[in-house]
Protein backbone atom coordinates (compact mmCIF):
# COMPACT_ATOMS: atom_id res chain seq x y z
CA UNK A 1 0.00 0.00 0.00
CA UNK A 2 1.03 3.57 -0.50
CA UNK A 3 -0.50 6.84 0.63
CA UNK A 4 -2.08 9.42 -1.62
CA UNK A 5 -3.50 12.70 -0.37
CA UNK A 6 -6.71 13.79 -2.06
CA UNK A 7 -7.48 17.51 -2.49
CA UNK A 8 -10.61 18.98 -4.02
CA UNK A 9 -9.75 22.32 -5.60
CA UNK A 10 -12.46 24.95 -5.89
CA UNK A 11 -10.64 27.31 -8.25
CA UNK A 12 -7.93 27.12 -10.90
CA UNK A 13 -5.54 29.17 -8.77
CA UNK A 14 -6.10 26.87 -5.81
CA UNK A 15 -5.37 23.84 -8.02
CA UNK A 16 -2.14 25.45 -9.22
CA UNK A 17 -0.96 26.22 -5.69
CA UNK A 18 -1.89 22.73 -4.44
CA UNK A 19 0.14 21.24 -7.29
CA UNK A 20 3.04 23.54 -6.50
CA UNK A 21 3.03 22.46 -2.86
CA UNK A 22 2.79 18.74 -3.64
CA UNK A 23 5.87 16.57 -3.69
CA UNK A 24 4.77 14.51 -6.67
CA UNK A 25 1.27 15.74 -7.43
CA UNK A 26 -1.06 14.78 -10.23
CA UNK A 27 -4.16 16.55 -11.47
CA UNK A 28 -7.28 14.41 -11.32
CA UNK A 29 -10.24 15.10 -13.54
CA UNK A 30 -12.43 12.16 -14.57
CA UNK A 31 -9.73 9.68 -13.60
CA UNK A 32 -10.58 7.27 -16.41
CA UNK A 33 -6.93 6.68 -17.23
CA UNK A 34 -5.15 7.80 -14.08
CA UNK A 35 -7.17 5.74 -11.56
CA UNK A 36 -6.79 2.39 -13.38
CA UNK A 37 -3.07 3.15 -13.66
CA UNK A 38 -2.87 3.83 -9.92
CA UNK A 39 -4.84 0.67 -9.16
CA UNK A 40 -2.22 -1.28 -11.10
CA UNK A 41 0.48 0.50 -9.05
CA UNK A 42 1.95 1.90 -12.23
CA UNK A 43 1.66 5.41 -10.82
CA UNK A 44 1.80 6.50 -7.21
CA UNK A 45 1.41 10.27 -6.94
CA UNK A 46 1.85 11.76 -3.46
CA UNK A 47 -1.12 14.07 -3.98
CA UNK A 48 -4.18 14.10 -6.20
CA UNK A 49 -5.65 17.51 -7.00
CA UNK A 50 -9.24 17.06 -8.16
CA UNK A 51 -10.22 19.79 -10.65
CA UNK A 52 -13.58 18.31 -11.68
CA UNK A 53 -15.63 20.61 -9.44
CA UNK A 54 -14.06 23.91 -10.52
CA UNK A 55 -16.88 26.11 -11.90
CA UNK A 56 -14.77 28.06 -14.42
CA UNK A 57 -13.61 24.76 -15.93
CA UNK A 58 -17.10 23.42 -16.55
CA UNK A 59 -19.67 24.01 -19.27
CA UNK A 60 -19.98 24.85 -22.94
CA UNK A 61 -20.71 28.20 -24.54
CA UNK A 62 -21.12 29.30 -28.16
CA UNK A 63 -20.70 33.04 -28.82
CA UNK A 64 -20.46 34.48 -32.34
CA UNK A 65 -19.25 31.18 -33.80
CA UNK A 66 -16.63 30.74 -31.09
CA UNK A 67 -17.14 27.51 -29.18
CA UNK A 68 -15.61 27.29 -25.70
CA UNK A 69 -15.59 24.05 -23.72
CA UNK A 70 -14.45 23.98 -20.10
CA UNK A 71 -11.63 21.50 -19.53
CA UNK A 72 -13.56 19.57 -16.86
CA UNK A 73 -16.61 19.10 -19.09
CA UNK A 74 -17.43 15.42 -19.49
CA UNK A 75 -17.77 13.66 -22.82
CA UNK A 76 -21.46 13.07 -22.10
CA UNK A 77 -22.04 16.80 -21.58
CA UNK A 78 -20.26 17.59 -24.84
CA UNK A 79 -22.27 14.90 -26.67
CA UNK A 80 -25.58 16.18 -25.36
CA UNK A 81 -25.08 19.95 -25.70
CA UNK A 82 -27.66 21.45 -28.06
CA UNK A 83 -25.71 24.62 -28.88
CA UNK A 84 -22.62 22.60 -29.76
CA UNK A 85 -24.63 20.16 -31.87
CA UNK A 86 -25.75 23.16 -33.89
CA UNK A 87 -22.34 24.86 -34.10
CA UNK A 88 -20.18 21.78 -34.65
CA UNK A 89 -22.00 18.45 -34.62
CA UNK A 90 -18.76 16.64 -35.48
CA UNK A 91 -17.34 17.27 -32.01
CA UNK A 92 -20.58 16.28 -30.24
CA UNK A 93 -20.74 13.05 -32.27
CA UNK A 94 -17.11 12.30 -31.51
CA UNK A 95 -17.78 12.67 -27.78
CA UNK A 96 -20.84 10.42 -28.04
CA UNK A 97 -18.62 7.58 -29.27
CA UNK A 98 -15.74 7.76 -26.80
CA UNK A 99 -15.32 4.60 -24.71
CA UNK A 100 -18.43 3.41 -22.88
CA UNK A 101 -21.11 5.21 -20.82
CA UNK A 102 -19.03 5.12 -17.63
CA UNK A 103 -16.08 6.73 -19.40
CA UNK A 104 -18.30 9.33 -21.03
CA UNK A 105 -19.94 10.39 -17.77
CA UNK A 106 -16.67 10.77 -15.88
CA UNK A 107 -13.95 11.36 -18.45
CA UNK A 108 -13.30 14.97 -19.48
CA UNK A 109 -12.00 16.77 -22.54
CA UNK A 110 -9.16 18.36 -20.56
CA UNK A 111 -8.07 15.01 -19.14
CA UNK A 112 -8.13 13.42 -22.57
CA UNK A 113 -5.96 16.03 -24.24
CA UNK A 114 -3.56 16.39 -21.29
CA UNK A 115 -2.94 12.64 -21.43
CA UNK A 116 -2.63 12.75 -25.26
CA UNK A 117 -3.02 9.02 -25.65
CA UNK A 118 -2.19 8.40 -29.32
CA UNK A 119 -5.49 6.54 -29.72
CA UNK A 120 -7.68 9.14 -28.01
CA UNK A 121 -10.26 10.93 -30.17
CA UNK A 122 -10.27 14.54 -28.92
CA UNK A 123 -6.69 15.40 -29.94
CA UNK A 124 -7.61 14.78 -33.60
CA UNK A 125 -10.63 17.10 -33.34
CA UNK A 126 -8.68 19.91 -31.70
CA UNK A 127 -5.85 19.65 -34.18
CA UNK A 128 -8.18 19.63 -37.19
CA UNK A 129 -10.23 22.52 -35.84
CA UNK A 130 -7.14 24.59 -35.08
CA UNK A 131 -8.35 24.94 -31.51
CA UNK A 132 -6.72 27.03 -28.81
CA UNK A 133 -5.99 25.49 -25.42
CA UNK A 134 -6.16 27.96 -22.56
CA UNK A 135 -4.27 27.15 -19.38
CA UNK A 136 -3.79 29.01 -16.11
CA UNK A 137 -0.65 30.56 -17.62
CA UNK A 138 -1.10 30.98 -21.39
CA UNK A 139 -2.86 30.08 -24.59
CA UNK A 140 -1.44 27.29 -26.75
CA UNK A 141 -2.53 26.43 -30.30
CA UNK A 142 -3.36 22.78 -30.90
CA UNK A 143 -0.52 22.61 -33.44
CA UNK A 144 1.95 23.46 -30.65
CA UNK A 145 0.13 21.62 -27.87
CA UNK A 146 0.34 18.01 -29.11
CA UNK A 147 4.05 17.21 -29.08
CA UNK A 148 4.15 13.43 -29.47
CA UNK A 149 3.19 10.12 -27.94
CA UNK A 150 1.64 11.05 -24.54
CA UNK A 151 3.53 14.33 -24.72
CA UNK A 152 2.09 17.82 -24.65
CA UNK A 153 3.48 21.33 -24.30
CA UNK A 154 2.07 21.49 -20.76
CA UNK A 155 4.35 22.07 -17.80
CA UNK A 156 3.99 19.70 -14.84
CA UNK A 157 1.72 21.87 -12.73
CA UNK A 158 -0.03 23.71 -15.55
CA UNK A 159 -3.83 23.38 -15.55
CA UNK A 160 -5.93 23.42 -18.72
CA UNK A 161 -8.86 25.77 -18.17
CA UNK A 162 -10.75 25.60 -21.45
CA UNK A 163 -10.61 24.76 -25.13
CA UNK A 164 -11.98 27.07 -27.80
CA UNK A 165 -12.32 26.99 -31.56
CA UNK A 166 -14.17 28.71 -34.35
CA UNK A 167 -17.21 26.78 -35.56
CA UNK A 168 -16.13 25.25 -38.89
CA UNK A 169 -18.14 25.21 -42.12
CA UNK A 170 -17.92 21.45 -42.09
CA UNK A 171 -16.51 18.94 -39.62
CA UNK A 172 -16.83 15.23 -39.15
CA UNK A 173 -14.98 12.44 -37.37
CA UNK A 174 -14.85 8.83 -38.49
CA UNK A 175 -13.11 6.15 -36.48
CA UNK A 176 -12.54 2.46 -36.64
CA UNK A 177 -12.75 1.52 -32.97
CA UNK A 178 -11.07 -1.39 -31.31
CA UNK A 179 -14.15 -3.47 -30.44
CA UNK A 180 -13.02 -4.01 -26.85
CA UNK A 181 -11.64 -0.65 -25.75
CA UNK A 182 -13.33 1.57 -28.36
CA UNK A 183 -10.05 3.37 -28.68
CA UNK A 184 -9.39 4.35 -32.28
CA UNK A 185 -7.39 1.88 -34.35
CA UNK A 186 -7.53 4.79 -36.73
CA UNK A 187 -9.66 7.90 -36.53
CA UNK A 188 -9.75 10.87 -38.87
CA UNK A 189 -11.22 14.27 -38.12
CA UNK A 190 -11.77 16.37 -41.25
CA UNK A 191 -12.75 20.02 -40.98
CA UNK A 192 -13.32 22.83 -43.43
CA UNK A 193 -12.24 25.92 -41.49
CA UNK A 194 -11.61 29.53 -42.44
CA UNK A 195 -7.96 28.50 -42.78
CA UNK A 196 -8.89 25.83 -45.34
CA UNK A 197 -9.23 22.07 -45.10
CA UNK A 198 -7.58 20.49 -42.06
CA UNK A 199 -7.28 16.75 -41.49
CA UNK A 200 -5.96 15.15 -38.31
CA UNK A 201 -5.35 11.47 -37.67
CA UNK A 202 -5.64 9.69 -34.30
CA UNK A 203 -4.79 6.13 -33.34
CA UNK A 204 -2.53 5.37 -36.27
CA UNK A 205 0.66 7.43 -36.08
CA UNK A 206 3.50 6.01 -33.99
CA UNK A 207 4.21 9.44 -32.53
CA UNK A 208 0.63 10.30 -31.69
CA UNK A 209 -1.90 12.52 -33.41
CA UNK A 210 -0.76 14.30 -36.58
CA UNK A 211 -2.08 16.36 -39.48
CA UNK A 212 -2.16 14.84 -42.94
CA UNK A 213 -0.78 17.52 -45.27
CA UNK A 214 -1.43 15.62 -48.52
CA UNK A 215 -5.10 15.09 -47.69
CA UNK A 216 -5.48 18.73 -46.69
CA UNK A 217 -4.01 19.82 -50.02
CA UNK A 218 -6.29 17.43 -51.91
CA UNK A 219 -9.39 18.66 -50.08
CA UNK A 220 -8.65 22.36 -50.49
CA UNK A 221 -10.96 23.42 -53.29
CA UNK A 222 -12.35 19.92 -53.78
CA UNK A 223 -14.12 18.86 -50.59
CA UNK A 224 -15.18 15.35 -51.57
CA UNK A 225 -14.44 11.76 -50.64
CA UNK A 226 -13.12 11.32 -54.20
CA UNK A 227 -10.32 13.78 -53.46
CA UNK A 228 -9.08 11.39 -50.76
CA UNK A 229 -8.89 8.49 -53.22
CA UNK A 230 -5.95 10.07 -55.04
CA UNK A 231 -3.90 10.51 -51.87
CA UNK A 232 -1.47 7.75 -51.00
CA UNK A 233 -1.03 6.87 -47.33
CA UNK A 234 2.14 4.93 -46.60
CA UNK A 235 2.82 2.47 -43.80
CA UNK A 236 5.92 4.39 -42.67
CA UNK A 237 5.47 5.93 -39.25
CA UNK A 238 2.28 3.97 -38.51
CA UNK A 239 1.71 2.15 -35.23
CA UNK A 240 2.03 -1.59 -35.42
CA UNK A 241 0.69 -3.86 -32.71
CA UNK A 242 -1.35 -7.00 -32.06
CA UNK A 243 -4.54 -5.19 -33.13
CA UNK A 244 -3.30 -4.16 -36.53
CA UNK A 245 -0.04 -3.74 -38.40
CA UNK A 246 1.25 -0.58 -40.02
CA UNK A 247 -0.05 -1.36 -43.52
CA UNK A 248 -3.51 -2.14 -42.17
CA UNK A 249 -3.58 1.13 -40.24
CA UNK A 250 -2.42 3.08 -43.29
CA UNK A 251 -5.34 1.67 -45.24
CA UNK A 252 -7.73 2.43 -42.38
CA UNK A 253 -6.58 6.06 -42.30
CA UNK A 254 -7.52 6.46 -45.95
CA UNK A 255 -10.88 4.74 -45.55
CA UNK A 256 -11.75 6.71 -42.40
CA UNK A 257 -10.72 9.98 -44.07
CA UNK A 258 -13.09 9.23 -46.95
CA UNK A 259 -15.90 8.48 -44.51
CA UNK A 260 -15.23 11.61 -42.50
CA UNK A 261 -15.37 13.83 -45.57
CA UNK A 262 -18.46 12.08 -46.93
CA UNK A 263 -20.12 12.37 -43.51
CA UNK A 264 -19.95 16.16 -43.39
Amino acid sequence: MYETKYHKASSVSEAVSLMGAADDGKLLSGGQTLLPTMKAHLAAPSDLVDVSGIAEMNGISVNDDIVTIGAATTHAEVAGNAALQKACAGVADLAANIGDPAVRHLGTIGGSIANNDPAADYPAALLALGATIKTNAREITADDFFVGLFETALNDDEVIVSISFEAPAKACYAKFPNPASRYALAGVFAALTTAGARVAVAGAGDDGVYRHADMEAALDGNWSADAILGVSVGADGMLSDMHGDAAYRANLVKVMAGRAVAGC
Partner: protein
Amino acid sequence: MEMSGEYSIDAPIAEVWAALNDIEILKVCIPGCEELEQVSETEMTAKVALKIGPVKARFNGVVTFENITPPEGYSIVGEGQGGVAGFAKGGADVRLVEDGDKTVLTYQAKAQVGGKIAQLGSRLIKSTAAKLADKFFKNFRDALVAEVASA
Protein backbone atom coordinates in the same frame (compact mmCIF):
# COMPACT_ATOMS: atom_id res chain seq x y z
CA MET B 1 11.22 -6.12 -30.44
CA GLU B 2 14.01 -4.80 -32.62
CA MET B 3 15.07 -1.29 -33.49
CA SER B 4 17.80 0.26 -35.54
CA GLY B 5 19.02 3.65 -36.59
CA GLU B 6 21.81 5.61 -38.22
CA TYR B 7 23.20 9.01 -37.24
CA SER B 8 25.84 11.14 -38.88
CA ILE B 9 27.87 12.89 -36.20
CA ASP B 10 29.95 15.96 -36.89
CA ALA B 11 33.01 14.77 -34.97
CA PRO B 12 36.02 12.52 -35.64
CA ILE B 13 35.71 8.83 -34.79
CA ALA B 14 38.18 9.01 -31.87
CA GLU B 15 36.07 11.62 -30.13
CA VAL B 16 32.85 9.74 -30.73
CA TRP B 17 34.42 6.62 -29.31
CA ALA B 18 35.67 8.49 -26.25
CA ALA B 19 32.20 9.91 -25.66
CA LEU B 20 30.62 6.47 -25.96
CA ASN B 21 32.80 5.48 -23.03
CA ASP B 22 32.29 8.66 -21.02
CA ILE B 23 29.89 7.95 -18.22
CA GLU B 24 29.05 11.64 -17.71
CA ILE B 25 27.99 11.99 -21.35
CA LEU B 26 25.99 8.78 -21.29
CA LYS B 27 24.25 9.94 -18.13
CA VAL B 28 22.89 13.13 -19.66
CA CYS B 29 21.90 11.33 -22.87
CA ILE B 30 19.89 8.44 -21.42
CA PRO B 31 16.28 9.67 -21.25
CA GLY B 32 15.12 9.76 -17.63
CA CYS B 33 18.52 8.76 -16.21
CA GLU B 34 18.80 9.73 -12.56
CA GLU B 35 21.95 7.86 -11.63
CA LEU B 36 24.71 6.13 -13.51
CA GLU B 37 27.64 4.81 -11.52
CA GLN B 38 30.71 3.04 -12.77
CA VAL B 39 31.26 -0.25 -10.91
CA SER B 40 34.11 -1.61 -12.99
CA GLU B 41 35.63 -0.85 -16.38
CA THR B 42 32.80 -2.53 -18.18
CA GLU B 43 29.95 -2.41 -15.67
CA MET B 44 27.67 0.35 -14.46
CA THR B 45 24.60 0.57 -12.27
CA ALA B 46 21.74 2.79 -13.38
CA LYS B 47 18.57 4.31 -12.07
CA VAL B 48 16.17 5.40 -14.79
CA ALA B 49 12.74 6.98 -14.36
CA LEU B 50 10.36 6.18 -17.16
CA LYS B 51 7.30 8.32 -17.70
CA ILE B 52 4.82 7.29 -20.37
CA GLY B 53 1.50 9.03 -20.08
CA PRO B 54 0.09 8.27 -16.64
CA VAL B 55 2.65 5.54 -15.97
CA LYS B 56 5.65 6.43 -13.88
CA ALA B 57 8.11 3.68 -13.13
CA ARG B 58 11.63 3.70 -11.80
CA PHE B 59 14.01 1.04 -13.00
CA ASN B 60 17.14 -0.05 -11.16
CA GLY B 61 19.53 -1.91 -13.34
CA VAL B 62 22.94 -2.98 -14.47
CA VAL B 63 24.54 -1.94 -17.74
CA THR B 64 27.58 -3.68 -19.19
CA PHE B 65 29.80 -3.16 -22.23
CA GLU B 66 30.69 -6.23 -24.27
CA ASN B 67 32.58 -7.04 -27.49
CA ILE B 68 34.64 -3.89 -27.14
CA THR B 69 36.65 -3.12 -30.29
CA PRO B 70 37.98 0.46 -30.10
CA PRO B 71 37.15 2.60 -31.98
CA GLU B 72 34.74 0.58 -34.10
CA GLY B 73 32.10 -0.14 -31.55
CA TYR B 74 30.78 -2.23 -28.71
CA SER B 75 27.66 -3.91 -27.47
CA ILE B 76 25.84 -2.36 -24.59
CA VAL B 77 23.62 -4.69 -22.57
CA GLY B 78 21.25 -3.68 -19.81
CA GLU B 79 18.69 -5.14 -17.51
CA GLY B 80 16.47 -3.34 -15.04
CA GLN B 81 13.83 -4.08 -12.42
CA GLY B 82 10.94 -1.69 -12.04
CA GLY B 83 9.26 -3.17 -8.98
CA VAL B 84 5.56 -3.89 -9.53
CA ALA B 85 5.80 -2.30 -12.96
CA GLY B 86 7.86 -5.19 -14.29
CA PHE B 87 11.23 -5.46 -15.92
CA ALA B 88 13.03 -4.26 -19.00
CA LYS B 89 16.09 -5.69 -20.65
CA GLY B 90 17.84 -5.14 -23.87
CA GLY B 91 21.01 -4.62 -25.77
CA ALA B 92 22.39 -2.62 -28.62
CA ASP B 93 25.26 -3.19 -31.02
CA VAL B 94 26.79 0.18 -31.74
CA ARG B 95 29.09 0.59 -34.75
CA LEU B 96 31.17 3.59 -35.77
CA VAL B 97 32.46 4.20 -39.29
CA GLU B 98 34.72 7.06 -40.32
CA ASP B 99 33.28 9.34 -42.98
CA GLY B 100 35.84 12.07 -43.68
CA ASP B 101 35.76 14.43 -40.68
CA LYS B 102 32.49 12.92 -39.62
CA THR B 103 31.46 9.64 -38.06
CA VAL B 104 28.51 7.51 -38.93
CA LEU B 105 26.99 5.75 -35.94
CA THR B 106 24.65 2.83 -36.52
CA TYR B 107 22.91 0.76 -33.91
CA GLN B 108 20.82 -2.36 -33.80
CA ALA B 109 18.95 -2.88 -30.60
CA LYS B 110 16.76 -5.54 -29.10
CA ALA B 111 14.53 -4.90 -26.14
CA GLN B 112 12.18 -6.92 -24.03
CA VAL B 113 9.67 -5.67 -21.51
CA GLY B 114 7.72 -7.86 -19.12
CA GLY B 115 5.32 -7.69 -16.21
CA LYS B 116 2.44 -5.31 -15.68
CA ILE B 117 3.89 -2.53 -17.77
CA ALA B 118 3.96 -4.85 -20.77
CA GLN B 119 0.38 -6.07 -20.29
CA LEU B 120 -1.02 -2.60 -19.99
CA GLY B 121 1.01 -0.91 -22.60
CA SER B 122 1.48 -3.64 -25.20
CA ARG B 123 0.03 -1.49 -27.95
CA LEU B 124 2.57 1.23 -27.24
CA ILE B 125 5.74 -0.43 -26.03
CA LYS B 126 7.32 -0.66 -29.45
CA SER B 127 6.76 2.97 -30.38
CA THR B 128 7.92 4.08 -26.95
CA ALA B 129 11.08 1.97 -27.06
CA ALA B 130 11.92 3.21 -30.55
CA LYS B 131 11.34 6.77 -29.44
CA LEU B 132 13.54 6.40 -26.37
CA ALA B 133 16.35 4.84 -28.41
CA ASP B 134 16.12 7.64 -30.96
CA LYS B 135 16.12 10.23 -28.18
CA PHE B 136 19.25 8.73 -26.67
CA PHE B 137 21.27 8.77 -29.89
CA LYS B 138 20.03 12.24 -30.82
CA ASN B 139 20.98 13.51 -27.35
CA PHE B 140 24.33 11.81 -27.77
CA ARG B 141 24.95 13.44 -31.15
CA ASP B 142 23.92 16.88 -29.86
CA ALA B 143 25.97 16.58 -26.66
CA LEU B 144 29.03 15.54 -28.62
CA VAL B 145 28.71 18.26 -31.24
CA ALA B 146 28.24 20.84 -28.49
CA GLU B 147 31.34 19.56 -26.73
CA VAL B 148 33.44 19.61 -29.89
CA ALA B 149 32.22 23.15 -30.65
CA SER B 150 33.12 24.44 -27.19
CA ALA B 151 36.54 22.72 -27.10
